[in-house]
């Protein structure tokens, strides 16, 4: 059955592993079935419970960076040259580590099935953050579901850990040493950087696409949910992160590489400087381990009508840069979607990058998303807006909405209506009427068509209420 075996070398906890394996085998299956490390649990196989969370340590520009991921959606091929950490790899020889001890002391564990996942996620946070902030630490657990404790004991455990251990420094090597010194990590973490450097010298070539390739896997957070059983029987190509310059700016023109993840966007200094609220927008995207893996290109190509990154980029009127062996071309994102899950893209074309231009210094931007459960949920409806105001009038506007049509929508008619008008209550109410004509939602598990219409109107209002609080008040609008 395994059509395509690859040689993969990595470090699992303290051990070197070299194995010939189908690169699409999930890391979860490998660690549980082959290595019999059963501390990592399977709860859903779809990235929704976090019981399978592990840490990946990788060399990025010669620095050792750790991030959490759902091992149920993680292809073995992506472990090449990495450090894989499971709960077993955090155990000290004699005592519990302070994270584990805090979970014991504060009632952070009940049936215990979710517990290794939580401990891994929190350790990932300690490894990652440059200074420790309670709300961020709690956010880092947003992909771990506990059905027993109500998460209250877990929150208390986090509080206690941060009370007893504070740190501010952005040097990874020093941080790792300090974490070892304070018993958060076992000794062997000291040598991982050098061991990975050594492994990287002997790594085999990266996987390349062939005519036989059936799947192009980037973060895998869509593909492994839908096709994991077929992936493992097929020839696949894994997109690897280019290590440098995922996000760049030249004269107001911004480029985002296709393989940039949601976390890369949130953490990018360039993005933060133009969208100070980026974290608030995208903390509504999946969970931390999903954000660490989900890519921009994957979100666009998945073509879900409610993709959040797509919604965001549509309002920036972004351009998609495609390439295959012979050709490079660009397509405006708003023209990229041809129909439900149908794209202006040949099967062998890859999204190399996405670009957008910001022409005005004083542009306004807002992103809204409503779902049944506020966090770790797909939107019922989402919407983004980009605005430039000149002399009190709307000089430029791009508006997008998801969940209200078979494709992510760029709201052209509403835009044209609003252009060169003042952002005032009457105009906005008229705009909402046009908006209502431009959409064609259907009833599904995320809500009835009627509700989605109503909700998009509310989000449309929310944009203006947030961006023009002095001019527009809710009473008048509603």
């Amino acid at each position, binding site marked *: 059955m395994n059509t395509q075996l690859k040689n993969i070398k990595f470090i699992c906890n303290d051990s070197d592993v070299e194995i010939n394996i189908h690169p699409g085998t999930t890391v979860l299956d490998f660690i549980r079935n082959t290595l*019999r490390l*059963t501390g990592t*649990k*399977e*709860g859903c*196989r*779809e990235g*929704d*419970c976090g*019981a399978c969370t592990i840490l990946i340590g990788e060399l990025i520009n010669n620095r050792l960076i750790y991030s959490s991921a759902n091992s149920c959606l993680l292809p073995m091929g992506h472990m090449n040259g990495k450090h894989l950490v499971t*709960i*077993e790899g955090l*155990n000290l020889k004699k005592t*519990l580590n302070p994270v*584990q001890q805090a*979970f*014991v*002391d504060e*009632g*952070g*564990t*009940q*049936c*215990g*099935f979710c*517990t290794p996942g939580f*401990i891994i996620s929190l350790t990932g946070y300690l490894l990652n953050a440059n200074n420790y902030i309670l709300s961020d630490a*709690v956010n880092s*657990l*947003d992909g*771990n*579901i*506990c*059905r*027993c*404790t*109500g*998460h*209250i*004991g*877990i*929150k208390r455990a986090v509080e206690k850990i941060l009370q007893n251990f504070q740190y501010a420094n952005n040097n990874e090597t020093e941080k790792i040493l300090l974490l070892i010194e304070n018993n958060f990590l076992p000794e062997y973490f000291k040598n991982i950087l050098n061991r990975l450097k050594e492994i990287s010298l002997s790594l085999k070539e990266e996987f390349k696409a062939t005519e036989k390739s059936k799947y192009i896997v980037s973060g895998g957070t869509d593909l492994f949910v839908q096709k994991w059983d077929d992936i*493992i029987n097929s020839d696949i190509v894994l997109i690897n992160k280019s290590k440098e310059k995922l996000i760049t700016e030249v004269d107001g023109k911004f480029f985002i590489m296709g393989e940039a993840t949601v976390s890369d966007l949130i953490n990018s200094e360039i993005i933060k400087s133009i969208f100070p609220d980026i974290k608030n927008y995208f903390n509504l995207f999946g969970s931390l381990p999903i954000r660490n893996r989900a890519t921009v290109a994957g979100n666009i190509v998945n073509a879900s009508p409610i993709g959040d990154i797509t919604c965001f980029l549509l309002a920036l009127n972004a351009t998609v840069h495609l390439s295959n062996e012979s050709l490079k071309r660009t397509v405006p994102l708003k023209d990229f979607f041809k129909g439900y899950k149908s794209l202006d893209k040949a099967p062998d074309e890859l999204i190399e990058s996405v670009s957008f231009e910001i022409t005005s210094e004083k542009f306004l931007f807002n992103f809204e998303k*409503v779902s*049944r*459960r*506020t*966090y*770790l949920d797909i939107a*019922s409806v989402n919407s983004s807006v980009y605005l430039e105001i000149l002399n009190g009038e709307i000089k430029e506007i791009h508006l997008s909405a998801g969940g209200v049509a078979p494709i992510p929508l760029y709201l052209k008619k509403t835009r044209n209506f609003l252009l060169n008008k003042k952002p005032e209550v009457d105009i906005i109410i008229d705009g909402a009427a046009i908006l209502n004509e431009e959409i064609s939602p259907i009833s599904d*598990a995320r*809500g*009835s068509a009627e*509700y989605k219409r*109503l*909700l998009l109107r*509310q989000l449309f209002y*929310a944009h203006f209420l947030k961006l023009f609080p002095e001019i527009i008040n*809710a009473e008048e609008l*509603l």
Partner: protein
Amino acid sequence: MAVKIIKSKNFVETDFVESLAEVPVEEYKPWPENDKLKIVGKPVSRIDAYEKVSGTASYTTDKFLPNMVYGKILRSPHPNAILKNLNTEKAEKLEGVLKILSFKNCPEISWYYDTSLLFDKNLRYQGDEVACVAAISERIALEALKLIEVEYETLPFVTTASEAMMSESPKVHGWGNILDGKPDTYVRGDVEKGFNEADQIIEEEFNTQVVVHNPTEVHCSLANWDDDKLTIWDSTQAIFSVRDTVAASLKIPSSKVRVIKKFMGGGFGSKLEAGKHTIMAALISRDIGKPVFISVDRKEMNLAVGNRPDSNQKLKIGVKKDGTITALSHISYGSVGAYPDSAGCSWPLKTIYLCPNVKTEEYSVLTNSGRSRAMRAPGHVQGTFALEAIIDDAAEKIGMDPLEFRLKNYAETDQVFNVPYTSKKLKDAYLKGAEIIRWKRRNKTPGSQNSEVKNGIGMATQIWWGGGGPPAYAALKLNRDSSINVFAGSQDLGTGTYTFIAQVAAEVLEIPVEKIKVDIGDTDFPYCPLSGGSMTAPSVAPAIRDAAEQMKGKLISAAAAILNLPEEELMYSQGLVSSIKEKDKKISITEIVSKTRNRELITNGAREKNPDGYATNSFGVQFADVSVDTLTGKVKVNKIAAAYDIGRTLNPKTLYNQIHGGIIQGLGYALFEERLLDRKTGKVLTTNLHSYKIPTIKDAPEIEIAIVSQFDPLNSSIGVKGVGEPAIIPTAAAIGNAVYNAIGKRIRSLPITPDKIIKALYS
């Protein structure tokens, strides 16, 4: 110790169960308040926490035996169908496939109270079992499922109780769709008369959704035979019930079956029954001579292993101007799915409030969907949501504060059985909870705040059983190193059973908790009840105390023999037996065991009987503080204040865990969780955690807990009442009332999603 056998009647989840029980003749004096105790009542950390935080705890899913093979189940994709033909030839040829079990080669094993078979040709819901493949790997078993050719004759189906009640609707079984052909009814007094006496009559209709347990560990079993002895590792809340069902299904003596469960990833009621997969694993394992592991996946979890039934409830309440309730009536319809179960939800209405005239009718209705099972406080959760909403509405109608209205109608005795309670401190709980949430700041006029985001406060009361009772047994063994082993056939679902057992034994023997090793979750140990109905602690703790008290007696007896003193002259304290008369005549446990050597001391304890002529219930109240974003319809629960009378607190740490967990499940029930079923296709739309939404850490509100009880003086010598289920009961009702208080619109159906709020506000 003298014992006798009695008939014991206890409430288990949805009904009274009668059984013979051995109970001690003499009973111990209840312990004093917790501050006079040394170990019980203290925040002892879970004794099994090390394994859990280090990942070494081995759950059933983690078990591995040499040569073990894997089973996967093929399920009907149709809501109603007849299995016409099954061709397994291609699947059997797949390399690695070892056995395919189906109606063709499986003995007829009765299931669902004789309404169906293990493999039935009538497939009555999407998820009904068609065949089971065992193969050398899970992947091959899954591949093989795809190769099985099945011919179905699809039949018309019904998905909702209201549809199923119509005479022309398809019948799920040959007989009618209403279970027992009629509702469960209850009448007290004369409701007609009661409504005539009322100044105000309020009638309302409520709907609650189907929700699914979704514990983090899926249902799974590993079966292995040695000769004619069968061992089953099972993720279960009821080892003895699994043992008995397996033995009966396989027609073998139950002494040949041993069921083991050390760690499990939650159950919440879904794991109280033996699963079909367990029987299949045992059958296939016997046939192929290898250990067989069968687990269901998350999709099957959402289709086929139980749920909380939905409800449509019509309530009517009559009140006088002064706040007296004169009559209450309740009609409920709930769909139990394709096989018999109970969907009744009237109990809270019958008992919480003082009311002479009550009438209830509970319809349990069959539909073509997954069967319901007990889920954390079955019935009470649904019933309380509706009752506590109409209570608030009645209070508003007569212009009375909802808390005052509840106090006005406070019931001092159990109105159904007309007996006193062994203890009831609900009044204290009301006052304490109100103080914590600062009740006075609630909106006097609901919805009156002038902002986009509106805040509201609401409350709800709960009643539950939770007295437990016999039979429950435990054995204690004093080891040569002076440590103690406790053996009891109970199970820890994550609730803290391991820990309270160690605490109770340590309390009696006045030795450190670390000296006690607890062995539970094995049918080779003395019988204990299933872990459900919030009755584990109230049933098991007294049996532990009995066994430990007897051990104290034996130590005194052994000391008397060694020291050549009469037993009466000796006393036991903190691991030492000493003479009352001569202080220097003493002997420690360590010295005693060094003399008894390998002749270990063993005792057997039993739960005493419950007092006659009393009802034991847990009581509590929750207050919710919420914010509602009127623009987007998002509801945020800011705080829950929970005040409870649960008798004695055995361990505040594990107790708070239980209450927190119940509240968050209640929050999920109130706001997100919902099994959606497409009425046109009869198929479930929410078959994974992507679509079935469980609360995350970001949804967890602040929770403040107050326990207003010291101990129940009459129920048992320990005086603990159950809390696992009480914790979830009032949450959705309190949140519902708080949302009303915030926006002034009542959402009468659960879950309270943004769409319902937006629609209530704008269309």
